[in-house]
């Protein structure tokens, strides 16, 4: 039994990890390339989830919801970039943190006004709501498997985009020397807007994936955002590879600790105390992981440049 349980929790960790990666990828690009701390990235994730849930409820189709959420969130993201964030690139991190903190307040309240204060339900279509038998006697939800597949595909796509295409080359060049790229005749502002839109689409995709598993509610972005920052800092700011490794590390740590720590403490504490201590340590584990990584390697596991 325990081996199967471990396998299931490993898959849960992988699923949570790739979802973190979807959100982290956009954020780390923005952070690494534009040197912008965007706390409002979690809001884009929320907007994506809400648009998808709302359109699904209206039309009864999850796919339509997905198709509506991605461009809608991209538009919101691009609007935010043009109106606010563009003015913040040259500012220090503190200003960026504060202004995007203001954006979070704005978005949370705005979503509450547009979609109402009550959480929305996001139902899965037939073909995704069943489970797949991985090994004989080991069923696993099909949707979680789909998340893993989508996450890995997006990961591959991003590696290809950044390492193999002209756009990726410009992105990397823009990260290491903004002025030089500009001097060579590249419209860097346009490039930034494009990258930001891409990040918004990925965040929306994360939100759509998270919707059926967690609640679609106001403020859903913030706990996720903080975890994603942990991911990025562990991985090294600006590195897609780092974001991927960091996301899997955090996802696995979180899920495994949550599943097994209470049992572990149960060996030498009474059950109630064990559940409390185990639960506490599981929530704290990822922050302990991050602190440990930063103390050992102050610039993360895969520092992108410099």
């Amino acid at each position, binding site marked *: 039994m325990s081996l199967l349980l471990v396998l299931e929790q490993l898959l849960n960790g992988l699923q949570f990890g790739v979802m973190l990666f979807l959100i982290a990828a956009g954020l780390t690009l923005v952070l690494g390339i534009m040197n912008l701390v965007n706390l409002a990235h979690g809001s884009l994730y929320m907007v994506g989830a809400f648009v998808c849930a709302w359109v699904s409820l209206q039309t009864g189709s999850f796919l339509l919801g997905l198709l509506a959420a991605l461009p809608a969130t991209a538009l919101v993201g691009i609007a935010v970039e043009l109106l606010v964030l563009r003015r913040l690139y040259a500012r220090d*991190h*503190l200003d960026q943190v*504060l202004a995007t903190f203001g954006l979070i307040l704005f978005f949370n*309240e705005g979503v509450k006004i547009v979609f109402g204060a009550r959480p929305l339900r996001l139902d899965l279509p037939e073909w995704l709501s069943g489970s797949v038998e991985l090994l004989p006697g080991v069923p696993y939800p099909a949707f979680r498997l789909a998340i893993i597949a989508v996450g890995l595909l997006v990961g591959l796509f991003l590696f290809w985009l950044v390492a193999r295409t002209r756009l990726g080359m410009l992105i990397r060049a823009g990260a290491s020397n903004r002025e030089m790229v500009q001097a060579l005749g590249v419209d860097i502002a346009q490039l930034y807007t494009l990258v930001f839109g891409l990040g918004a689409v990925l965040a929306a995709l994360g939100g759509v994936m998270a919707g059926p598993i967690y609640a679609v509610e106001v403020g859903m972005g913030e706990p996720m955002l*903080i975890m994603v920052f*942990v991911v990025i800092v562990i991985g090294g700011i600006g590195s897609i590879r780092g974001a991927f490794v960091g996301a899997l590390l955090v996802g696995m740590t979180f899920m495994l600790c949550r599943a097994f720590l209470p049992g572990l403490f149960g060996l030498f504490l009474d059950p109630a105390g064990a559940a409390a201590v185990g639960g506490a340590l599981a*929530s704290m584990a990822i*922050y302990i992981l991050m602190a440990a990584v930063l103390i050992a390697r102050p610039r993360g596991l895969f520092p992108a440049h410099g």
Partner: protein
Amino acid sequence: MTRSDLVALIGLAGFALFPALAWAGGVLWAVDLASRMLIYGLAALALNLVLGYGGLVSFGHAAFVGAGAYVVAILSFHSMMGGSILGYGGTESGFVAFALAILVSGLLALAIGTLSLKTSGLYFIMITLAFAQMIYYLFISLPDYGGEDGLSLWARSDFGPLDIGDDVVFFYLCLVLVLLFALLKRRLVASRFGWTLMGLRDNERRMCALGTPSFRYRLAAFTLSGAVAGLAGALLANQTEFVSPAFLSWHLSGELLVIVILGGMGTLYGPLAGAVAFLLLEFALKEVTEHWQLALGPILILVVLYARRGLWGLVEGRKDG
């Protein structure tokens, strides 16, 4: 005495008369709001020591405020309900509880600072946030102390003859503590310690070349800042007579940063002005609409974009450099 001191003095004198004015105007409830302004102001003054003078962006000061608040609440809880924490049966005495709140928050800041100050820049912002989140989840998962629901205080702390259950007395306690710390900070900033701290903020490499042990100076400032934030937390627990994990949440850390910026980073009294302005704004917006955050967000963005030196920048006038 500079112009800045003079304005601060007039402001404080005005504040000291506030209860009388509120009484005369029949709005005695406003004294409670004024106490809250002072408490937030104290926490912001503490944060400003590291943020404004040390150049260290701590995104986790809620941890120290919350820890101070929880110390008061937990001691009061055990003294009422029995049981003990670490073998200590709790107390209602404000003298003991406040001293312990300062001590615990200070030690927490010492520990967090020791680990965090090895990093810098963005990584420092994130690691302080991570540590604060750690403490936040720690308290959420302690069902004995209310978990997510928080913990109510039976009464405000017992300061012997000083009955802080009375809102006006409590207000003056806050005022005196704020005044004491403002004076301490004024001396500190003008001292060798303060100049070293600012030197490290402006040019760390040169200061290190001159042989300054940067880590020790910053850690000392961080610890002091955390300890005073803990005192603010102890006051906050008494003001609301209730503590909850919200006191540890990153929203509070963010609000404190906003207050310092709004008031004027690296100014002596700016954070106080920031706290007054921020809470007034919040109060006024709440009166107008339940969706007050929709307005507060853009206001914050505008302040960041266009009012670089905060409210106190207006008071100090032009500053060269």
